[in-house]
Structures are given as structure tokens and as C-alpha cells.
């Protein structure tokens, strides 16, 4: 990681995804949100293999096929072509969301516009303009045993994304259990942000200044260490 100005001290998206991937157990059933969260699949630790679920009815899909080899009936929720691993299964949308809503997934990982200290998530809409689209986000935040967010710690213009209360339209209430940011790993527990790990080069004061709600500590804060990627 770079060691320049404080503004440059942060994890890349790949590094955030890598860190989140370390917390997924072998054999876990996992749903990765469209876009950035999909990157988590690349960084499974050696010897572990999660089973990935996609809302449109596949368990245990694999890598994208080579270009030109796509079967457009074999896609993921992001509508990108995928392949199958041995042991894959197809099912319809109601069964797929039974897996989600019924609490059968071990982990769901989503992006965020804002996460509140209460665990509320806003990640589907920034305002009231344009065409609203929600997809499966409101379903995914309920039911998975753990719902993680991966995100930059602040917005492009430096505003906190971890806040006391979301100002953007909510995706779900009290649903997020952990946030992996560009600067820290933060649990949400009893309506509070609890810092578990942070970059060594970032002080608690710096981190608090970037955060829109009080940070708490429940145990020694561990250095957030990730490889160059």
C-alpha cells in the first residue's frame, strides 16, 4: 500500500475484496452483489471453496467462460455469462429467494451508499430522480446469516458513508453485521460501530474523522493487513 498523504492511505477495491474473502469459510453458501462485491470470489484463500448462489437460479456457478463460448441462458444476476462447477443445481426464482429469505445463505456481500450504526443499509437509490431499480438487494439484506458490506470508507468527495442514520432511501433496516472499508473492518453490534481492524497508518482519530457516527472499541484493534494486489 502507498505511504504518502493520508488521503492516499487506503486499500484498493481489490484489497477490500481480498479482506472480506478471508472471512468466508470453506463450503460456505455465498451471494455476492452485482459489481464490486463479485470481486470477492477471486480472493478465496487456498484450500477453501465457497459455493456461490445467484438470484436467477444457480448454486455453485464458476468462472466466466472464454469469450465466444458464452451460453446466454447460463448467466448470473449481473447478466454476465458464467460456467458451472460439479455439483451445481438449477432452480426457479421462488426457490432461489427461499434460499435467501429463509436464511440458508451463510454470507451475502453487498455494496453501499450509506451504512448506519443501527445496521440500516442504503444501496439502491440516491434520490428520487431517474428510474428506480431495486433488483434483489432488499431480499438479500434479510435472511443470510451474515450480511457484509464492502465499500470505500468515504464518498468520492470525502463525505462519510458510515453514518448515524442513512439519508438515502433505505434498502433494509438493522440488517448489516459487518463493514469492510478501504480503511477498517467494523462490526455493527447493538446499534454501534465497533472497530475490529484498521490500517496501521491510520489513527483512531483519523478514522473517527472520516466516519459519521461514533466508533467504539470492544477488544484490541488489530492491524488491517492485506497483500499488494
Amino acid at each position, binding site marked *: 500500500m502507498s505511504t504518502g498523504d493520508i488521503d492516499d492511505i487506503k486499500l484498493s477495491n481489490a484489497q477490500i475484496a481480498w479482506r472480506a474473502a478471508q472471512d468466508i469459510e470453506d463450503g460456505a453458501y455465498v451471494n455476492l452483489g452485482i459489481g464490486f462485491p463479485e470481486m470477492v470470489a477471486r480472493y478465496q484463500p487456498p484450500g477453501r471453496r465457497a459455493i456461490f448462489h445467484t438470484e436467477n437460479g444457480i448454486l455453485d456457478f464458476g468462472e466466466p467462460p472464454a469469450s465466444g463460448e458464452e451460453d446466454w*441462458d447460463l448467466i448470473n444476476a449481473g447478466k454476465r455469462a458464467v460456467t458451472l462447477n460439479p455439483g451445481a443445481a438449477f432452480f426457479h426464482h421462488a426457490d432461489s429467494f427461499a434460499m435467501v429469505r429463509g436464511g440458508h445463505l451463510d454470507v451475502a456481500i453487498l455494496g453501499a451508499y450509506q451504512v448506519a450504526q443501527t445496521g440500516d443499509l442504503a444501496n439502491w437509490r440516491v434520490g428520487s430522480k431517474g428510474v428506480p431499480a431495486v*433488483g434483489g438487494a432488499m431480499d438479500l439484506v434479510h435472511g443470510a446469516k451474515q450480511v457484509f458490506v464492502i465499500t470505500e470508507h468515504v464518498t468520492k468527495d470525502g463525505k462519510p458513508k458510515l453514518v448515524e442514520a442513512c439519508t438515502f432511501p433505505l434498502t433494509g*433496516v438493522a440488517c448489516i453485521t459487518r463493514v469492510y472499508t478501504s480503511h477498517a473492518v467494523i462490526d455493527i453490534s447493538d446499534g454501534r460501530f465497533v472497530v475490529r481492524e484498521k490500517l496501521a497508518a491510520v489513527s483512531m482519530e483519523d478514522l473517527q474523522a472520516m466516519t459519521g457516527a461514533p466508533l467504539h472499541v470492544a477488544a484490541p484493534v488489530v492491524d488491517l493487513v492485506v497483500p499488494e494486489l
Partner: protein
Amino acid sequence: MDKTVSSTADAVKDIGDGATIMIGGFGGSGAPIELIHALIDKGPTGLTVINNNAGNGRIGIAAMIDAGMVRKMICSFPRSSDPRAFTDRYLAGEIDLELVPQGTLAERIRAGGAGIPAFYTPTAYGTELAEGKPIAEFDGRHYVQERWLKADFAIVKAHLGDRHGNLTYNKAGRNFNPLMCMAAAITIAQVSRIVAPGEIDPEHVITPGIFVNRVTEVAQPQQEEELIRAGVSYA
């Protein structure tokens, strides 16, 4: 009993103005493009269309919207790779939108097919998509009451079909199709191949024929994604 119909045009010929139509598929996967295009040729207007998305490019549901046939979309994600057709009409106030979370959409359709008029789900509780809906608490947690969805017609894409209406699907092309078969008064399936009853192993039937009214063969079905990449317009 013979539910086979000789052409896509015949299969959709009684879909009239103002109908509510469920259209299977998730994006282009499992989307019944030939049936949709046959419906465009017939040209009913004032339709309510239920689909996960709201059309892409200038084909399929997007072409229905371009043709001015659609009054309202009920969907979860009307903003896919190239949603111009819907976006333009929506921003111009020319088309209504009922936005439904994807899992709730699936469950509402299943409920329509299963005779369940309402159910409770945690999804959307506390969000603007639950506004105006009854809320109830069970075991200390809040849930939103959602109502069933039914349709006058469902048009779906399947893989194999027999003349009793038994269907299989191709891979993730299954998605909403089996649910929509259950929830419509008249279900119309295009299949890649019509086979004799018994050729589909009873263990492998995904949609039993009781949910299907018409089966028509489209031997080499088009794939929405490929049409969009080729810049095809159906008009």
C-alpha cells in the same frame, strides 16, 4: 388432449387490449423472444407487463414499449444494459411502474399460482417500497404483507414440451418461467422441441402440464443478448 399450437401467431391471437401479461425470462435468459415478437405483430395496447426487467435494446419487451403497447410495468429492475425504451417513456410520464423487490416479485407470482392471496415477508420492511402496506410482527420481528400477482396470460420460454404441456427449461433460463406458468389464466409456452408424452422423464418435468395451455415449437430460438449485441431492432 393436444395443447400444441402450430405457430407463435396462433398462440397469442387472443391476447387483447388491456391484458395483464407475465413474460418469463431474466434479461435475455429464458426470454420468449419469438412469442413477444408475435405479440407485437398482433399489436394489443394498454398492456400491463410483469417481468423482472423492462426490456433492453430495441427487441423483446423493449420493442413492445417502443410500439406503445405497454401501459404499466411490474418489475424489479427496469434499468439493465440498454433500457432506453422504458427509460424514455417513464421519464416522459407515459408508462407506469410498480417496482417490486425481486424475491417478493417471485413470491407474489408463486402465491398467485398457489392460491395464497397474501403473505408476510421481511423484505422491504422500513423502506419506501413498503409504504402503504400492512405491517405485522411475528416472533418479535416486523414483516410486510404482500399480495398475490395473477395475470390473464403468461408467455414463457421452455426447452422441451409435450402435447400435455409438460415442460423442461434450459439452465438458468428457468428463472421466473415456471412460476408464471402457475399464475396466469392462460399460459403459452414456446419450446425448442415438442416431444411425445412420456419422452420427458416424470422425474424431470419442471412444469407439469396442468399449468400450461398452449405449446408451440420454435426450433432455433433467438437469444436476446445476441440480438442486442448485433444491434437488431424489431419494429
